[in-house]
């Protein structure tokens, strides 16, 4: 029997969207690990961390509550799992607010009733890396490795929202080690004490304040390069996009020479599991991950 979860894919995972490659690599990873993701039927956007100008507290909670209500209906016994850090965070925050505030709960259900729905908020809301670390475990992940990522040095860039305010159980805010452990479980070499591991990439402000955010991104890349990293790995679509796609602009502004691939943990795992470049969604890299491509074609 596969492990089953009620899955919240999120907007950026959709076909033709910015992290569709993440989604494809996760599907491959889940098939190897015997994980079954059941999409929440007709899920909607969570408003991420940037919808607050137009959306006040209750409308934003109502967005996530609709997803929870649909999940409770369709998959009553399954934890909710998200792959996007912002989706996970927004959903988990809404869930906790509903659990702890009776008035919010009542008001949210009044709003949901407009579409014939109601929410209990009685589920656990988890990020995919929690499933990997807590339900699957490093040992089982290691046991699936067919092509160890030997000789590849990787900076585990955790970023903000999978780390704060909730984080992964048992990890510290300042130096979480689950990505490093995962990198090591795949046979690669994690950068120890990566100084920018939990630094902010600017998040959504990379769009609205590009210069200011690119100054942050530059430091994240520089610290990885200074530590001899061949690539970055991240669990967050916003981190991935921000650290990958602006490297050219940063090079122009700062006279730097960055051309360092940034991959998702799931892509990394797929390659180590012996899957093809396509199954690992390596074709989604704007900066090609040559070492992983070579390994995939061996």
């Amino acid at each position: 029997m596969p492990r089953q979860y009620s899955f919240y894919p999120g907007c950026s995972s959709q076909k033709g969207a910015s992290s569709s490659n993440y989604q494809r690599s996760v599907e491959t990873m889940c098939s190897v690990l015997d994980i079954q993701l059941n999409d929440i039927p007709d899920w909607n956007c969570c408003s991420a961390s940037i919808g607050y100008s137009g959306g006040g507290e209750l409308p934003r909670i109502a967005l996530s509550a609709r997803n929870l209500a649909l999940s409770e209906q369709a998959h009553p016994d399954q934890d909710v799992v998200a792959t996007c850090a912002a989706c996970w965070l927004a959903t988990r925050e809404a869930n906790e607010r509903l659990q702890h505030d009776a008035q919010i709960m009542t008001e949210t259900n009044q709003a949901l009733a407009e579409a014939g729905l109601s929410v209990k908020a009685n589920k656990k809301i988890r990020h995919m890396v929690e499933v990997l670390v807590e339900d699957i475990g490093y040992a089982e992940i290691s046991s699936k490795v067919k092509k160890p990522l030997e000789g590849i040095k990787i900076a585990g860039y955790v970023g903000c929202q999978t780390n704060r305010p909730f984080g992964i159980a048992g990890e510290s805010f300042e130096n979480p080690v689950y990505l490093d452990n995962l990198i090591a479980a795949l046979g690669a070499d994690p950068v120890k004490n990566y100084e920018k591991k939990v630094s902010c990439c600017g998040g959504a402000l990379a769009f609205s304040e590009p210069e200011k955010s690119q100054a942050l991104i530059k430091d994240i890349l520089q610290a990885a390069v200074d530590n001899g990293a061949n690539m970055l790995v991240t669990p967050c679509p916003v981190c991935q996009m921000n650290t990958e796609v602006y490297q050219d602009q940063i090079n122009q502004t700062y006279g730097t020479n960055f051309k360092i691939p940034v991959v998702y943990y799931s892509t990394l795992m797929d390659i180590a599991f012996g899957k093809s470049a396509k199954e690992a969604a390596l074709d989604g890299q704007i900066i090609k991950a040559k070492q992983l491509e070579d390994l995939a074609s061996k």
Partner: protein
Amino acid sequence: MTATEKYRNNFLQEVIANVEEGEWVRMCMQCGVCSGSCPLGPHWEHPPQEIFMMIRANKRQEVLSSSSMWYCTSCYNCIARCPRGLPITHIMHGLAHYGRKLGVAPKELPTIKFSMLFWENLVQKGRVNELKLGLRLYFMNGFMNGIKTALKMQKIGLGMFLTKRMTPMEMLGGHGCKDAKGLQAILKKAQQIEDAKTVKQG
């Protein structure tokens, strides 16, 4: 009676009543840890600790019209570190929202515009259409500026397109919820309840 009239002399009470997580502002002990935590700190006119002090000093106009909160990247550093456990990120979002709603937030800030575009985009179909959002973002400062930004971003757009991480098909409709109508009804009701609370308390 409007919030302004009722709370003219007590902005703290107004924040407690009308701003998300506003009741926490009382708990701040002014240690300054949060202010040292913001990634875009140098760009904040008044860092969070100062904002909390100004709320208590009744500086209503200065706080609500400040650009400060709009430089919050939602990094949650402050929440992780605050010795008093204040949900600072949410208070910043709440103050930003409240100032925008009252029409006193600075109009020309890119993040306000982007945040509004994002919300409008998601309300339309229940899911965000990245291409339309991106294009409206580039053109939000007028047509010529839009062309300039689009040209600057052209290479990135091409990279995204070639790796199938962006599709022109989104212009023709693209992704959405089946029950977008239901979702809109939910949001409308939630908004009504929230507005009623603000007016009632205000």
